[in-house]
């Protein structure tokens, strides 16, 4: 089917919630045979190293489950802070908003270019 999961994070997560999100998401990918995951973080006002690691984990885990993850809607202040903190979110593909993220997932799905990534997925 090539179904997509849309996950909207509405609140600032504390650690346990973020870990729950990680495992729930991977289970849901498995259950629904999802081929793509869109994570909307436009309501998230901070991403610290823990939350960054969770996003990275989700991207890597979903890839192993044969699904693509795209993170959308990162606030500019969050992006600047992440880089200064030293977190580059390697392996996480992002798009400006949900619409562009969906386009990106569809393109990846139907062009079958899953092997051809634009990001550096070597050592993280």
């Amino acid at each position: 089917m090539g179904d997509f999961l849309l996950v909207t994070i509405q609140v600032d997560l504390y650690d346990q919630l973020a870990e729950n999100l990680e495992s729930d998401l991977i289970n849901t990918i498995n259950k629904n045979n999802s081929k793509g995951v869109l994570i909307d973080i436009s309501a998230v006002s901070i991403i610290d190293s823990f939350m960054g690691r969770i996003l990275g984990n989700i991207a890597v885990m979903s890839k192993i489950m044969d699904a693509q993850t795209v993170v959308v809607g990162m606030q500019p202040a969050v992006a600047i802070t992440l880089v200064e903190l030293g977190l580059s979110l390697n392996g996480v593909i992002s798009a400006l908003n949900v619409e562009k993220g969906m386009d990106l997932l569809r393109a990846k799905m139907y062009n079958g270019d899953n092997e051809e990534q634009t990001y550096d997925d070597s050592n993280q």
Partner: protein
Amino acid sequence: MTTATSKEELLIVKEQDVVPLRNRVKEYGVKIGMSILNQTKLITATSELVRNLLKYGGGGKVIIESVSNGRDQGVRVTFIDNGPGIKDISLAMKDGYSTGKSLGLGLPGTKRLVNEFDIQTELGNGTTVTIIKWKNG
């Protein structure tokens, strides 16, 4: 000379205390008209340090203050734990170093996000980290 105008103290003993603390720090930033970007940096730094306080210090207390140095206003946050202390502070301040399983971005990364960063630690006597983010810093 940095002077404090308002001050409050929060006990941090569990993970669920982190989000309310971040919200209080944000309120202090909003009150002095800090930009969204500086607020985000301050709250992210707070989040990193409070995580250390819980993970390595076994919890502790956090003091949030509005401060002024005559030219600028800012928010000072002090993290005090009674944990084991840090053995080698210069090593702990190095990018990529971690004794835990984290990425090792904590202390050096946090220092980059704020304007003033001070750490006092003594083996067996805990660690105190103080940060200041100036409104126009």
